[in-house]
């Protein structure tokens, strides 16, 4: 029997001809990412191991994203300790304030993740790396420290589940809508827990890298171990100017085993939302049209890319954000910011009454930059909506696509982009 792409990657990187689901293997790790929030703890664990040098200074990637720019003295001090630890280890790629971005965006856009390789990071949305055909996996600081010391990590080879996405993308429908749609199909009740989630089909081939990143990003929220899309010409073109290392194409074998294969016709997927508090409480936009909200937020490792800024700018060009709404947009990296600036998107958004902030995780994790207070109703293009996620437990968070956020920001109530005339 053949192997799935994830099984192949785990076999190739552990010096085996084949692996089977359930098997525990130690694999080589291509890159290890850690960030300001847990990075100091990771380096502390490295010291606990009695190791002074990381396995490869070029392949330990350090990023400041959760705490920058620091909103409090406490975070400023944490950042100083973090910077000291990074410098002490002479890490080559340190994306600190000024060169920053959300770690997962940085890992992909700067070519630190490659098809056929395994990269890990101390933040849950490391699943994003599957967009280029890598196995991307989130780990705790202990695993990250072990990988920093040895270049290795242990894995349980996951069972695989395949989603074949067919049909035509409808106007105003984005990869985020499909992510939420799949969340509504599968829920949190165990179907995808610990599974490798493979996405393929004509509607995936038609998707740009930004959309692929959004889809793989949210597979962690489905409970999956990793999300992965086999590399193709779009991947190759994206990686050509940035890849830090060489790679070879690979794909699942036609006779690979899947625990389940699901088919989705994207033609039937419309603008979609997650209702406040529960990520798997999914509704089509029609069900919530007219709901009032007072904060609009677009950014994060899920939807803070140039393509997301393009969509917002297209909708908000010559329009005004409603007086009852405060809208904040945060690019996922300095590269995204600069590109959006050059393309005129930032100016369009500012003219429409959108506040732009410097790249960071911003309000998504409820740490800083636009956190929610009591009574806030937030329409967010982020990835999580649990009570208290963005700040107050007495705030509500709807999750949706940048298109729905932008259109709704104009009207001041949740609006179906398909019914809105530009």
């Amino acid at each position, binding site marked *: 029997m053949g192997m799935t792409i994830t099984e192949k990657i785990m076999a190739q990187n*552990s*010096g*085996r001809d084949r692996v089977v689901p359930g098997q*525990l*293997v*130690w*694999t080589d790790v291509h890159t290890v990412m850690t960030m300001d*929030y*847990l990075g100091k*703890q990771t380096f502390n*664990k490295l010291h*606990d*191991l*009695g*190791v002074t040098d990381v396995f490869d200074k070029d392949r330990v990637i350090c990023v400041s994203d959760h705490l920058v720019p620091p909103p409090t003295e406490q975070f400023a001090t*944490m950042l100083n300790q973090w910077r000291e630890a990074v410098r002490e280890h002479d890490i080559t790629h340190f994306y600190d304030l000024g060169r920053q971005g959300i770690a997962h965006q940085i890992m992909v856009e700067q070519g630190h993740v490659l098809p056929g390789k395994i990269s890990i990071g*101390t*933040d*849950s*949305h490391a699943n994003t790396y599957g967009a280029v055909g890598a196995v991307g996996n*989130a*780990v*705790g*600081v*202990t*695993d990250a*420290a*072990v990988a920093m*010391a*040895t270049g*290795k990590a*242990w894995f*349980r080879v996951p069972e695989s589940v395949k989603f074949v996405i067919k049909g035509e993308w409808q106007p105003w429908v984005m990869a985020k809508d499909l992510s939420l749609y799949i969340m509504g199909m599968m829920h*949190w*009740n*165990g179907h995808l*827990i*610990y599974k490798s989630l493979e996405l393929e089909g004509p509607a995936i081939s038609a998707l740009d890298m930004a959309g692929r990143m959004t889809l793989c990003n949210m597979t*962690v*929220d489905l*409970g999956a*171990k990793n999300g992965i899309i086999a590399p193709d010409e779009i991947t190759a073109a994206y990686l050509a100017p940035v890849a830090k290392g060489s790679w070879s194409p690979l794909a699942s074998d036609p006779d690979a085993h899947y625990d389940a294969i699901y088919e989705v016709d994207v033609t039937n997927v419309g603008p979609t939302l997650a209702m406040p508090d529960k990520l798997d409480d999914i509704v089509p936009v029609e069900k919530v049209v007219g709901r009032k909200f007072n904060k609009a937020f677009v950014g994060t490792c899920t939807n803070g890319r140039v393509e997301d800024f393009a969509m917002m700018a297209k909708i908000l060009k010559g329009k005004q954000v409603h007086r009852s709404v405060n809208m904040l947009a945060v690019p996922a990296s300095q590269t995204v910011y600069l590109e959006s600036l050059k393309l005129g998107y930032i100016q369009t958004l500012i003219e429409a009454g959108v506040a732009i902030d410097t790249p960071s995780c911003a309000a998504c994790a*409820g740490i800083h930059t636009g956190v929610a207070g009591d009574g806030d109703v937030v329409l967010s293009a982020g990835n*999580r909506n*649990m009570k*208290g*996620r963005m700040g107050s437990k007495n705030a509500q968070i709807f999750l949706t696509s940048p298109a729905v956020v932008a259109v709704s920001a104009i009207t001041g109530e949740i609006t179906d982009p398909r019914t809105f005339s530009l």
Partner: protein
Amino acid sequence: MAKIQGTAWVAKTYVMSFDMIIQRFWTAPIDPVENSKWVMAGVDEAFNRENGFVDQGYTFIVAGHNFAGGGKSIEHCVTGLMGAGIKAVFATSFARLQFRNAINYGLPFVTCRDMNLHCATGDVLEYDPETGIIQNLSNGQTFQSLPQEPFVSEVAEAGGLLEFVKRKIADGTVAELR
């Protein structure tokens, strides 16, 4: 390994990682005793005070699907439970991040389907790590859990992944890990 006996707390709904360790402690140093003081504070209002969970004196947790879900990579969820005296967690399924962390710290996260439907908070359980058999001494029911992988036991016996790897580094066999 000897059998373990004690009382259980049984989850009624999903137990999420960000409720096990509430946000203000996400960046706290990893220390089982310190982490235990506010562990589970967001899971149940009864635990939302200093030592709220510790004071209950539970030995086991029994849960349904996706225990410790919600995708946080912080290790405090596991160290907090260990500091609170939890010796094993039984669940229908575990979220992968905390499943990993539990293995790395040597706390048994034991897969046992639907046990939550047949146990109540306060029941006395007896867990035999050798056989994977769990007995509910309060209602007489018996459950067979999935056996632990040898690697999981090896890491636990070493005192966690750091010690396990440290020994491999010390005896020069770390490169042989595969």
